[in-house]
């Protein structure tokens, strides 16, 4: 049957299994919005296009499916940029559809025209400008395929208004054929054998897990591999929920605000097995001193991640599930030697245990003022096992990483690569849309919360019971911490002293707000908030100048940690 461009788009979304999209209407997508009502696709109207993209991102991170966002041309399109870049840096599969001015006007500086394909070229995995309605179905098919396969990432489709109105025969291609795009899934067996041999020869190995393991849903394979060898596991910020943080082999997070014992273990290791991690500078500190004695095995789906920042002794390109499974099989074939290996690693486990005992992750507790870390610990204790946690960016984000005991994959959503303040609330919104029955909690700072606080309206409108924790230190705390430590305590433009009444703000939107300032109220208010239906803000007025510790100063080696300020 003949269909219009906008109908074809919606048909294609259905074929891709899309049941929910996040977006914001405008002139160049008005036809799509008009037709949307005829399709069984739920549309969530956010209050800002950036939030629509973050929400699609939150939806994608929790479900593993491709998140979809729609925005109009011009300002709608430019508003998506931060969301797209956030997803790109963390390898999150998205398809973002932007309206564009009619093709004859493109290039004429028409009303609400921007070259969004040009603008997003370096922050998308791929992007398209639809120039002919005959290409439309193929482009959409490819966009979804590219977004979710290989190393996932956002794909943008710029869709001119005149093509939305034209019509053609609709046929959805059942296969994707791209001669230039064929990700390697199957890990090379010879490389895997070599890795098994390196492991058998190691005495001080460490597994270093990144967000790739989350995207590949490889946590079971990871756990099996780690347990059969009893090798300790450290994770990046994005890898935290992939490996149960309470597991005896867990070292917690490594890097700038990682645990002392994770950083010491990596520095002293003789074999580092990187699994879906990319040796980001917040992880490695001074590169020259990173894992100086270790051979490095790097397993990743993206060949460009390998040897980008550090030397690698053994690269294995492939899907992590596949490679870890093969690695476990290879070790299984050496099962009679495994007990000897585990025995030989005894002193290493002892050394690590001593670091853990000597320098545990702690903070100075208080009876008079709320310590932000205490709030995180209580949340971790009181929330349900499958709760989904999002954060904004700043000190509260690092405290969440340090003190929340993540135990299930796809339950921790945070902007790691880009560090986007304002990510957490819309991401929580998207997660709650995906899982209406689960607890979804945005852990926020007073600064970040105000970057997308308008989404309270969306939460209330759709009855999304996201619980928002604001650790209010009345500062852009993380920046203040740097000013305290490295800039002579000159708190330039970091105090946020205007006292905002977050309770009233919640109420203005029709949500519920609580605010507390005494430590003995913390548990009580968390429980009360969890019992309250609908979205709730919990404001905790916390110790204002608490610092995130330990800390590796920028440019220092990761074993040169400052333990307390």
């Amino acid at each position, binding site marked *: 049957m003949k269909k219009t461009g906008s109908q074809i788009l919606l048909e294609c979304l259905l074929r891709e299994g899309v049941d929910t999209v996040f977006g914001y209407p405008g002139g160049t997508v008005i036809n799509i919005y008009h037709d949307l009502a005829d399709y069984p696709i739920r549309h969530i109207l956010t209050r800002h296009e950036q939030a629509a993209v973050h929400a699609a991102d939150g939806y994608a991170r929790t479900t593993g499916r491709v998140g979809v966002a729609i925005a109009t041309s011009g300002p709608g399109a430019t508003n998506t940029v931060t969301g797209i870049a956030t997803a790109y840096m963390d390898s999150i599969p998205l398809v973002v559809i932007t309206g564009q001015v009619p093709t004859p006007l493109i290039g004429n500086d028409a009303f609400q025209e921007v070259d969004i*394909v*040009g603008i997003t070229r370096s922050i998308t995995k791929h992007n398209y400008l639809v120039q002919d309605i005959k290409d439309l179905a193929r482009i959409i098919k490819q966009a979804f395929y590219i977004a979710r396969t290989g190393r996932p990432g956002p794909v943008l489709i710029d869709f001119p208004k005149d093509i939305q109105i034209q019509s053609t025969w609709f046929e959805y291609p059942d296969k994707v054929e791209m001669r*230039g795009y064929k990700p390697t899934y199957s890990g090379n067996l010879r490389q895997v054998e070599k890795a098994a041999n390196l492991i058998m020869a190691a005495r001080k190995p460490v597994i270093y897990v990144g967000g790739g393991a989350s995207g590949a849903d490889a946590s079971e394979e990871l756990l099996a591999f780690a347990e059969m060898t009893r090798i300790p596991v450290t994770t990046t910020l994005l890898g935290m929920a992939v490996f149960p943080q309470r597991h005896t082999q867990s070292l917690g997070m490594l890097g700038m605000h990682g645990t002392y014992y994770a950083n010491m273990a990596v520095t002293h290791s003789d074999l580092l097995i990187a699994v879906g991690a990319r040796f980001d500078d917040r992880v490695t500190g001074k590169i020259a001193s990173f894992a100086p004695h270790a051979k490095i095995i790097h397993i990743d789906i993206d060949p*460009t991640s390998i040897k980008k920042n550090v030397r690698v002794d053994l690269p294995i390109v492939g899907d992590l599930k596949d490679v870890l499974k093969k690695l476990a099989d290879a070790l299984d074939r050496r099962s009679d030697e495994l007990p000897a290996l585990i025995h030989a690693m005894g002193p290493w486990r002892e050394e690590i245990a001593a670091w853990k005992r000597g320098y545990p992750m702690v903070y100075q507790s208080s009876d008079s003022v709320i310590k932000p870390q205490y709030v995180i610990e209580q949340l971790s204790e009181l929330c349900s096992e499958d709760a989904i946690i999002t954060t904004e960016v700043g000190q509260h984000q690092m405290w969440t990483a340090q003190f929340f005991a993540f135990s299930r994959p796809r339950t921790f959503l945070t902007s790691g690569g880009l560090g986007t303040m304002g990510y957490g609330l819309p991401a929580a919104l998207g997660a709650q849309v995906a899982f209406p029955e689960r607890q979804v909690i945005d852990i926020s700072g007073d600064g970040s919360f105000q970057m997308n606080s308008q989404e309270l309206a969306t939460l209330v409108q759709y009855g999304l019971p996201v619980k928002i924790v604001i650790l209010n230190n009345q500062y852009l705390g993380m920046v203040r911490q740097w000013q305290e430590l490295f800039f002579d305590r000159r708190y330039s433009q970091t105090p946020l002293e205007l006292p905002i009444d977050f309770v009233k703000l919640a109420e203005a939107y029709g949500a519920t707000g609580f605010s507390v300032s005494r430590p003995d109220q913390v548990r009580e208010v968390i429980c009360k908030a969890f019992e309250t239906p609908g979205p709730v803000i919990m404001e905790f007025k916390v110790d204002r100048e608490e610092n995130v510790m330990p800390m590796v100063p920028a440019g220092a080696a990761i074993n040169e940690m400052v333990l307390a300020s």
Partner: protein
Amino acid sequence: MKHTISVLVENEFGVLTRVAGLFSGRGFNIESLSVAPTLDPSVSRMTIVTCGDDGILEQITKQLNKLIDTIKVTDFTGQDYVEREMALVKVTAEEDTRAEVLRIVDIFRAKVVDVTPRSYTLEITGAPTKLNAVIDLLRPMGIKELVRSGPVVMGRGL
């Protein structure tokens, strides 16, 4: 070290910008770049001359391969290949130098493609080193304008 890389790409709108953007965005250097369709009109070939150490070249090759529109990347360094570049040179040719210019044209098998009373325009083809040599010889006579195509390459043998 200098490398000549040949990249087969989809002959589609925006591909050149993707490749150029990759080089500029990641701080890789492009010394020259030439693009034209191949025998198969849906495919274009880019020939890129770049430089960098082994690590950088490995990243360049991997990053090029990562582009969705890239079909094949070949680094010709260390391989047996034919390399050709063309230059158009407008050189001053007055009474006293006309003969000398023509001698150089003859020696290097260049061609005179345009003549005015005061200048010759020459077409020179060859390996970039040969072009450099001719240009050096012509320079004292006064080069008014120089256009180089950047090299194109082809592997030797089958």
